[in-house]
């Protein structure tokens, strides 16, 4: 049975235990029908031209993993920001782990979606927000149909969350192959502030295929600082669908650090629904081997006087492939839009590939929209400069790669995270610089 059929028949079994009066019952039924008619995207679709899921669909994924595992904190400590205090919402093989988590209901809700979906108390929020900006494409619909677990974060207005929230999905390898579909719902009230770190981490070399959907709602003047750490094993693949709806004067920033994994597709979408909104999308991608990362971004400027800033840096080694498809839409009404997009890439080896495609659709006449895209090699003069200072070629190359990516790190607001990312970059480049970068 192919994966699509397996998912469809599994849905029927799963549907039984979803209560008919659940606010999402009809949504799910509708969603599975969309997936049934559309199936998995193929390279024939314009948006998927450079990313093939074929190789991922062959494994015989378990859709409902066993619940027994003996994961202890010490086994996974290194995947957390353990040197500072954080809230933690942790899932192991798709199941919430109360043992590894640190949630709260004090003046806000940092907990799990299944609880929010089943308790009447949360019904108004679920009804108002769940699946409200996620579009009806096949993969998002697939996730909606199966959505039962994920992070539920509700920050009431004026609340400044004092410590970052970590959302981590572990897979243990208990199953020969595992498909996960986490679903996160994040609502940040008026003038509230929150920092969130999301991570998907496989703990074995058994294949994992994750199709994740995150909906984020930033109310007026809300500040959302979101970090995605994609440093998974080479046997793990991820489709990350993130949809962000922003109200007036809100500020949302998403940093995506893509260093690991097999096939990674980031569908990152911003919808600006008020005035004086600021949206930031930044990323560092460092790949090797046959890794593939596809950044598919959308910033939809709907109202006037808003800004968006995109800055993606990519370093591609060996036979790795990268895609940057950055779409900016400026509606006719969205006058005085200031949209900036930059994408710089370095190809280190002859077999590495990058497909960069900026797409600007501008319907307003009084806007400032700029985009720049470069593809190049490491600067030979710069390399020579470093080597004349006694720094060996390998280290000199690493230093230049670090310098190239560094710009994006400047805006990371959590110092411990910045340090951690720095270390990951140094590891990924394979060189110890002899000082804390």
């Amino acid at each position, binding site marked *: 049975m192919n994966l699509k059929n397996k998912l469809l028949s599994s849905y029927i079994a799963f549907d039984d235990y979803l209560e008919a009066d659940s606010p999402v019952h009809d949504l799910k039924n509708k969603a599975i029908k969309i997936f049934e008619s559309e199936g998995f995207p193929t390279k024939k679709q314009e948006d998927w031209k450079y990313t093939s899921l074929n190789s991922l669909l062959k494994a015989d994924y378990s859709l409902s993993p066993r619940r027994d595992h003996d994961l202890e904190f010490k086994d996974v400590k290194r995947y957390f920001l353990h040197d500072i205090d954080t809230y933690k919402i942790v899932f192991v093989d798709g199941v919430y782990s109360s043992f590894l988590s640190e949630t709260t209901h004090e003046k806000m809700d940092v907990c799990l979606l299944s609880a929010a979906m089943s308790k009447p108390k949360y019904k108004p929020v679920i009804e108002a927000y769940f699946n409200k900006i996620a579009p009806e494409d096949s993969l998002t619909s697939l996730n909606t149909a199966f959505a039962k677990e994920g992070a539920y974060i509700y920050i009431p207005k004026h609340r400044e969350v004092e410590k970052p929230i970590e959302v981590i999905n572990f897979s243990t390898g208990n199953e020969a192959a595992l498909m996960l579909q986490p679903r996160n719902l994040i609502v940040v009230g008026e003038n509230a502030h929150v920092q969130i770190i999301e991570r998907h981490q496989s703990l074995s070399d058994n294949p994992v295929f994750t199709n994740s959907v995150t909906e984020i709602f930033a109310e007026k003047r809300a500040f959302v600082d979101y970090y995605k750490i994609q440093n998974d094993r080479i046997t793990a693949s991820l489709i990350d669908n993130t949809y962000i709806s922003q109200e007036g004067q809100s500020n949302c920033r998403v940093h995506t650090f893509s260093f690991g994994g097999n096939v990674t597709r980031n569908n990152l979408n911003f919808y600006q629904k008020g005035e004086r909104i600021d949206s930031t999308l930044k990323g560092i991608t460092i790949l090797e081997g046959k890794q593939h990362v596809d950044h598919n971004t959308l910033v939809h400027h709907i109202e006037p006087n808003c800004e968006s800033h995109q800055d993606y840096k990519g370093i591609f080694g060996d036979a790795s492939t990268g895609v940057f498809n950055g779409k900016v839409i400026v509606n006719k009404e969205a006058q005085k839009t200031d949209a900036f997009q930059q994408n710089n890439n370095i190809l280190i080896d002859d077999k590495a590939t990058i497909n960069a495609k900026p797409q600007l659709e501008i319907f307003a006449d009084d806007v400032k929209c700029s985009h720049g895209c470069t593809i190049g090699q490491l*600067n*030979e*003069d*710069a390399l*020579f*400069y*470093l*080597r*004349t*200072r*006694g*720094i*060996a*070629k390998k*280290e*000199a190359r690493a*230093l*230049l790669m*670090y*310098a190239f990516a*560094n*710009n994006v*790190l400047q805006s990371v607001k959590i110092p411990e995270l910045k340090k951690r990312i720095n270390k990951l970059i140094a590891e990924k480049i394979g060189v110890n*610089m*002899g*000082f804390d*970068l």
Partner: protein
Amino acid sequence: MLQIRNLHAGVEEKEILNGIDLHVKPGEVHAIMGPNGSGKSTLASVVAGKEEFEISEGDILLNGEDISELDPEERAHKGVFMSFQYPVEIPGVTVTNFIKTAINESRKAQGLEDMPASEMLKKIKEKAEMLDIDRKFLSRSLNEGFSGGEKKRNEIFQLAMMEPKLAILDETDSGLDIDALKIVANGVNKLRNDENAVIVITHYQRLLDYIVPDYVHVLMDGKIVKSGPKELAYELEEKGYDWIKEEVKA
């Protein structure tokens, strides 16, 4: 110290250096002057080991050892230093961290342990003071957003920290005002001793008022066409290079 014998070098088919002979002894300062495109910067780059240039003939001896096949970093470890006309910006790496890396990489190559942190700090402080470098400057990203003068001063700071045997200053005076020029020249002079040597590449005699050369060489079309005492620099400043061209023709 440095002996260059019949050096021919260039890129692909184009020869830029056409048989250079130069002998620099310990304790000496040599100035290399010449019109644009005469090969001055190429000579500096070839001695420092830039791979873009191919040596077709001749050799470069450092203390008797042929270094012409060595990597740039290996030459640096043996005591060759080049101050760049256009230093490279390295965002995210501070001046201090960069110099630490450079020094410890060289020490590693010589089989030495890393320089102890306290010694490193003391040395950094001492050299920064000598070059009138502000402490804040040391924690800035290397060359990023530096003015032309700051970049050059930073080059000489690196020179002071690395204490090479042979320092090649490629157009270090360009982009410097007179005060900065004095500080930089003064720094170079303080570093001079009987065991090291300096090659100053410059367009103008101005720098040579402060770093006084023992010999002045005129480079034209990839060849040293005339050598003389420091007074030759004044003559070039006054009369330009045309008279030498005539002399060479004759």
